[in-house]
């Protein structure tokens, strides 16, 4: 008699005490009893096979005591499993065809990728057996940009691997509910050159105009392509994609009024985009390596030859050798205390590039929003203030009256953010740490709130735990987007700036929020970031397809490549200092929020730089608790903390050095933009300032990972578009709306 027990949550935690870590995924246990004696036990961990019986799709799911060594034969695993099973169940498994044992697809948990390429090598360390894979292209990250690049490459015939630390549909792209801009011209006469002008102006002339030209010209085709993939955009009566006004878009180069360019999918554009791309990517033969944490790039002679990653599920190290590596790992919102990003937005790609000795670009440009809920990080709409909500400090004073006597709470976002930060700095913040302010809405009639802002009481209750009709909502300025990242050209290739020219790093590409092809420049316009993802994801795939062929022979790699990454991993795994990872992370986040947030002045930034350098030194004193290697979240969080620290020091040092206010980087002591000419006056008779005396340039930051020392260099902005005849460049001017 077979007794099936599906383990409920309560008993599962009990059983965890008794079982080895590899069995913690236990879902159900089948116990074969005969007269009170247990004849055999089988157990399942998801996914099940068709017959519902215990089947392991691949060797990686076996506990160590069951594995037959590095065998690629699945039948061996079934033989091993059948040793446990009594004869009656054995007959059942024999009836299961071998194809079912193989599993319907090898795409999620197959440790070996394409079986013939997998080898276990002992070259790095005998304690960390390394599995080597060979692919034509590797994409790190499976958000909007990563998925688009991965299946673009698969479509072109490349043998592609997609390494991601999250399941693709859990990437942070899923949280983007706003729309995507494209000059389709469905609502009125529209031209992508007007979109180009708006984006260049929005970036405060720090965006590279060739990349912006590329993005805005490709935008209509990209949106139509998404729609052909099955993304259910909202429609007009005629069946064309409905576009609405959003994000500083205008007609006729700013002179024709508001443009309607933003396409959306009901309330969930990013969610729908990600699911559409994921569904589409399953059509192609991409190998997904889900829950693999990418540790480092494998660089040799300045060329990128692949990635080394840790499989979180079983703790093995994997080296992915590929001719082309695409980085699409997203932003690094988690360096700040209050951010809208997921806990997984830790800037892994930026850090991998930094450790490889390559620069990161424009990291000081971080987009803030004034009213984000304290603790949760969700943003409260400006409509609250528009409907009459007011910001109050610990003394119950409506402090905006002092900072903006006319506009008061309806002042522009940066003014409000700075005022809130000044109030907090001067000690009039609320809460036990006095680190936020209140947004008061309970003086408004509840009916008005319910009709004008439906859902806000629900939001406030869920995320802040307050009843919006009785208590104020705790808010503080919150990070929303990182404009900076890995520098690329308009084709998606990663570049460095040496000897006065852009030089391409062979084999390395980047797209999405992790990259800085600099379409957003100093400030991102709303609804442009989703467009950035798909256009540059596709651009990376096209560039690789143009320059390389599938099945190209890989250049040789040293057998000990990736050794330092594994040494670092080992060091962190057995770290025995005095500070917990969470403490160091909180210190870093609080320091960045206090010093590198909205309110930036020389003294505050300098103090922040010194504090961050000190916190960077404390990273040697970390203590981790989990010494295992299977699903060691302590270790992964510590690796993420290392990545966050690299991003944080570059951000604050770049901000401290940039002595002007441009876009999202606003300084109290240097309130104006410093360009090569003074664009507020006529250009006649003005002398052009030399390169090192003006600030219309990109910051390229390098860090020495051992000491934490940041070196800054500068790179000029690309001012010409791809085709001057087709789309003339936009000369800089004063940015005013």
């Amino acid at each position, binding site marked *: 008699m077979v007794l099936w027990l599906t383990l409920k949550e309560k008993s599962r935690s009990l059983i965890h005490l008794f079982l080895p870590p590899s069995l913690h995924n236990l879902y159900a246990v089948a116990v074969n009893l005969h007269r009170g004696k247990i004849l055999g036990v089988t157990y399942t961990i998801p996914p099940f096979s068709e017959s519902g019986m215990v089947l392991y799709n691949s060797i990686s799911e076996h506990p160590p005591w069951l594995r037959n060594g590095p065998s690629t034969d699945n039948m061996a695993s079934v033989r091993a499993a059948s040793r446990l099973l009594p004869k009656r169940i054995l007959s059942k498994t024999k009836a299961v065809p071998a194809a079912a044992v193989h599993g319907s697809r090898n795409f999620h948990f197959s440790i070996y990728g394409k079986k013939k390429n997998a080898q276990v090598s002992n070259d790095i360390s005998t304690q960390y057996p390394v599995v080597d894979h060979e692919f034509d292209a590797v994409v790190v990250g499976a958000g909007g940009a990563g998925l688009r690049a991965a299946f673009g490459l698969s479509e072109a015939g490349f043998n592609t691997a997609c390494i991601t630390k999250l399941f693709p549909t859990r990437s942070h792209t899923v949280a983007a509910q706003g729309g995507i801009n494209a000059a389709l011209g469905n609502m009125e006469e529209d031209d992508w050159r007007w979109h180009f002008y708006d984006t260049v102006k929005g970036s405060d002339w720090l965006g590279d105009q060739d990349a912006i030209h590329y993005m805005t010209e490709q935008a209509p085709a990209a949106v139509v392509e998404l729609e052909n993939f099955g993304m259910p955009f909202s429609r007009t009566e005629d069946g064309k994609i*409905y576009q609405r006004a959003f994000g500083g878009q205008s007609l006729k180069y700013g002179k024709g009024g508001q443009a309607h360019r933003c396409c959306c999918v009901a309330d969930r554009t990013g969610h729908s985009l990600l699911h559409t791309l994921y569904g589409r990517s399953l059509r192609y033969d991409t190998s997904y390596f889900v829950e693999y944490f990418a540790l480092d790039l494998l660089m040799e002679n300045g060329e990128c030859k692949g990635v080394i990653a840790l499989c979180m599920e079983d703790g093995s190290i994997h080296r992915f050798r590929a001719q082309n590596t695409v980085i699409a790992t997203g932003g690094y919102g988690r360096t700040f205390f209050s951010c809208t990003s997921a806990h997984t937005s830790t800037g892994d790609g930026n850090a991998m590039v930094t450790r490889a000795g390559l620069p990161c670009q424009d990291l000081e440009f971080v987009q803030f929003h004034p009213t984000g809920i304290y603790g949760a990080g969700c943003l409260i709409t400006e409509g609250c203030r528009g409907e009459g909500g007011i910001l109050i400090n610990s003394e119950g004073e409506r402090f905006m009256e002092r900072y903006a006597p006319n506009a008061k709470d309806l002042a522009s976002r940066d003014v409000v953010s700075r005022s809130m930060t000044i109030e907090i700095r001067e000690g009039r913040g609320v809460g036990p740490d006095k680190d936020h302010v209140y947004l008061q809405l309970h003086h408004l009639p509840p009916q008005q709130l319910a009709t004008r802002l439906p859902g*806000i009481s629900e939001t406030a209750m869920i995320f802040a735990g307050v009843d919006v009709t009785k208590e104020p909502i705790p808010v503080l300025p919150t990070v929303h987007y990182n404009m900076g990242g890995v520098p690329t050209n308009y084709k998606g290739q990663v570049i460095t700036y040496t000897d006065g020219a852009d030089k391409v790093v062979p084999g390395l590409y980047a797209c999405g929020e992790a990259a800085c092809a600099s379409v957003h420049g100093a400030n991102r316009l709303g609804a442009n970031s989703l467009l950035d993802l798909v256009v540059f994801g596709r651009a990376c795939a096209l560039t690789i397809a143009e320059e390389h062929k599938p099945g190209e022979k890989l250049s040789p790699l040293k057998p000990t490549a990736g050794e330092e990454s594994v040494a670092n991993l080992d060091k962190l795994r057995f770290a025995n200092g005095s500070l917990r990872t969470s403490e160091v992370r909180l210190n870093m986040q609080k320091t960045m929020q206090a010093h590198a947030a909205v309110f930036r002045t020389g003294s505050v930034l300098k103090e922040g730089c010194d504090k961050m350098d000190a916190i960077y030194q404390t990273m040697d004193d970390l203590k981790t608790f989990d010494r295992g290697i299977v699903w060691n979240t302590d270790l992964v969080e510590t690796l993420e903390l290392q990545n966050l620290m690299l991003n944080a020091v570059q951000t604050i040092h770049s901000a401290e050095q940039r002595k002007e206010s441009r876009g999202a980087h606003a300084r109290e002591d240097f309130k104006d933009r410093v360009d090569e000419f003074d664009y507020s006056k006529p250009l006649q008779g003005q002398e052009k300032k030399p390169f090192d005396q003006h600030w219309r340039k990109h910051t390229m930051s390098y860090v020495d990972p051992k000491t934490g020392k940041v070196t800054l260099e500068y790179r000029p902005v690309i001012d010409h578009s791809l085709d001057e005849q087709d789309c003339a460049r936009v000369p800089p001017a004063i940015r005013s709306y």
Partner: protein
Amino acid sequence: MSLLRFSASVSRRLLWKSAAGESVSTGCSRAASGAVSDKEPLKKAKTPQGRFDLPEEKSKDVLEKFPDDVNPVTKEKGGPRGPEPTRYGDWERKGRCVDF
């Protein structure tokens, strides 16, 4: 092996206990209902057996769906529910700003 046997028996016992508990509580409510008929009747525990007896309350979403999913003002089909999300200059949904 013995550990698994123990846990199997533990979970079995837990199942029995919960089943026994339910029968006791319903028994109690039936016995006591005579005495407390003038007050509010004691609520029955939501047992798995009685799960589909009560009509399920539909949770009301604050943002109502448009008839036929067509916005009557802008004639947008399949668009965001509720008031126009961009009416305050940022993309707002349920009081949360998702893009600006």
